């Protein structure tokens, strides 16, 4: 990450011999230079001439350093506005960490937004949320649902992804999508290896860029909301509530879902056993690898299927009493998912349900006690008023 604020310049280039996609070099003060590339896997199409996606992917780096960004290339007017708003939103949320950025481009493209049509690309990581988003459109469970043009997989969002070739990394995903006739398009990136994924903002700017890379074929790309709305009420963050700010005039990157509790999402996968068997929320190891079955994310995924009254879709997933009772909630998303799983529990597995209820109850009690201690501390003048 750059250490000095100042004027940054983003210059596009070709992503390497024989490869199609985008490459951007970001140069900043103090000799800072970093490179991001997105290569289209198994595809002969040319990425769009406007750099909306690439700029969005690089923006968090500049937001951390502060200053301005000049783009040597074209940007649509909406993308310019949206990305400016994106930087303002995060700078307001964490002023010490992010800065508002003034963005300029050699050429700002004006003109009406692309016609959205009724087809969309779907960013599909294989998580329960992204699989549910895909399925609810495939099955027409959403009013005004989109036809699925293709599922888009991004390789390189985890460092471990780089150890495996494209064909091996995508084989399982292709097999899972085949029964539903959904083509898989893929993008490989060096974002994780280059340290370009901001832990607070997450992978959305990179995923958005990957979707933009296919914008000559489709005008809309959908990604699953990463949180339940219920989580936002208790653990506010700007990311999940931003209007779709990775969009431009030629391509819209839109969030979908965020309302269904995990058991409901798992239940919707029942007619798609191949997709259900590919579900993994595990963050250990590369994306394509089987889930570890031991981490809290794997346990919550297993609980979602059991709570929906289904058997576990893959053998790696498991949920034991001890594992559920000692689930670690070191993040609001997990806590909200666990609570929603409990609320959405349909039938069966009463012991597991009891263990989850105890774990959720304990977490709620700890939160309540902590809040009241803060209150007493503030009322006694020992601590500043709370919440911050």
């Amino acid at each position, binding site marked *: 990450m750059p250490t000095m604020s100042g004027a940054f310049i983003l210059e596009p280039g070709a992503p390497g011999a024989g490869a199609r996609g985008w490459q951007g070099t970001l140069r900043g003060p103090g000799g800072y230079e970093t490179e991001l590339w997105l290569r289209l896997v198994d595809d002969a199409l040319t990425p769009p001439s406007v750099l909306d996606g690439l700029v969005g992917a690089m923006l968090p780096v500049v937001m951390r350093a502060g200053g301005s960004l000049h783009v040597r290339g074209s940007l649509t007017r909406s993308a310019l506005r949206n990305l400016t708003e994106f930087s303002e*939103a995060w700078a307001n949320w964490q002023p010490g960490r992010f800065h508002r950025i003034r963005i300029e481009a050699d050429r700002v493209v004006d003109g009406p937004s692309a016609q959205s049509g009724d087809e969309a690309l779907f960013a599909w990581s294989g998580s329960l949320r992204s699989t549910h988003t895909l399925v609810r459109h495939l099955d027409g469970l959403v009013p005004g649902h989109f036809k699925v043009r293709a599922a888009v997989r991004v390789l390189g969002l985890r460092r471990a992804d780089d150890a495996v070739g494209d064909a091996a990394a995508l084989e399982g995903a292709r097999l899972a999508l085949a029964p539903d006739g959904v083509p898989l398009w893929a993008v490989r990136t060096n974002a994780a290896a280059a340290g370009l994924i901001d832990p607070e903002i997450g992978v959305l700017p990179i995923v958005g860029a990957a979707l933009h890379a296919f914008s000559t074929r489709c005008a809309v790309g959908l990604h699953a909301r990463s949180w339940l709305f219920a989580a936002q*009420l208790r653990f506010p963050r700007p990311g999940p509530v931003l*209007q779709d700010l990775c969009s431009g005039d030629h391509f819209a990157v839109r969030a979908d879902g965020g309302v269904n509790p995990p058991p409901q999402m798992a239940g919707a996968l029942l007619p798609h056993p191949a997709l259900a068997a590919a579900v993994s929320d595990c963050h250990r190891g590369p994306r394509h690898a089987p889930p570890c079955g031991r981490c809290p994310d794997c346990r919550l995924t297993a609980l979602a299927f059991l709570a929906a009254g289904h058997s576990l879709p893959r053998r790696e997933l498991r949920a034991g009493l001890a594992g559920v009772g000692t689930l670690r909630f070191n993040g609001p998303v997990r806590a909200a998912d666990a609570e929603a799983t409990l609320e959405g529990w349909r039938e069966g597995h009463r012991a597991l349900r009891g263990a989850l209820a105890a774990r959720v109850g304990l977490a709620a009690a700890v939160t*309540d006690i902590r809040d009241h201690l803060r209150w007493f501390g503030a009322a006694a003048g020992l601590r500043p008023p709370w919440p911050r």
Partner: protein
Amino acid sequence: MTRPIHVWFEDGVEKGAQVRRLIFEGHEGEGISRAESWWRIFGVTDLSVPPVLDSFVSGHVLWAAMNGQDLRVHGPMSHGGLYNMGQLIEIRSVLSPEMYPRRISVIPDQVVTVARPADDPGLAVAALSGGLDSTFTAVRHARRLVGAAAFRLAGLVMVHGFDAPIDRADQFDEMRRRAEPLAQWLELPIYTVATNAKLTGGRAWPQAAIPLTACALAQFSDRCAVGLVSAGAPHGIPRFGISHGGFLDALSSNDFFQVVTDGGGFGRADKIEALSCFPQALAALKVCWEGPDPARNCGHCQKCVLTRLNFLAAGLPDPPCFETPLELAHIERLDLPSMYVARDLFRLCWNELESRGRTGPAVDLLRRRLARVPPNDHVPAALRRVGWLTRRLVPAKARHVIRRHLPAWLRL
């Protein structure tokens, strides 16, 4: 199985004003099966009818969802608009299932493909209530404070029928008179849209506020591709229950007309600081909606005190839009029974005062008041029960002695 509400659209000119109507038939409850929302656009008679009815219908889907009745729209709608309405209903019904018990469907006669014309000038029209947020949005785009990211504004729209009741034209005229110097300075026309839509779609107020504002803005969709509304709070502040977030506002968009929320990356003190070099804008601010006169700031309601403290945070203790200076009694009288009520004061006000290092009696008093706000009602309820028991078991004199010896912070 409930019957659907049938919806028709009408457009015409009456007494020199363009009038549009959405007619609803078959809605259940209150014994009336026919209702209509109308919009009267003064001084304009040449607006083309939009190719899709999405914007008008979108303002009423929450009302229909409250009734649990599907909407059967006799007119064209766009695919994007239908998807957005579906999302809006889905999200709202999850967040407030008691208000929106059923995920209703919107069924149009035809789903059409629409797009802006290739030579569309890309203009925007902005909603103006006269408050801090909408004034900030108008100024920052009209004065291009965001450079090339600014929208080119074609005008400002004031809605008669929201803050000022539709039968109080006198109050609305006062509001408009207050905003006119600002519009003149920005060299933008103010359009007035009078509407009774709050009587029908507005039953879901305040959640319906932005969808209904979008209805008013969409009257100009033949010349403007975008309707700008201002964010009431920075992104990340959860106000789903009482208000809206940028992503929810955007769901009032469709394939022909886009609703954009602006200014969510700024706190209220940030906005005041940005406007501080434009005294015309600050003088025209009208933030109060509880006072008896919608054209003036009462100065002592929750919103007025919040705004006064925002001014204090921005280093302007005596702002021109209030007739009297801030007094400690204003802060003393704030009603803060629980964190739920106090949250806005924390996030929209206290954090800004603290981050700017403001001090003084007003800040000290606010700190003391906020410090006492309990996180929820559990402990206060228990204390009330203890107090009730104590009053019955301990003689008054003994209670006074105990009270005298309690530290100040425990005397709730």
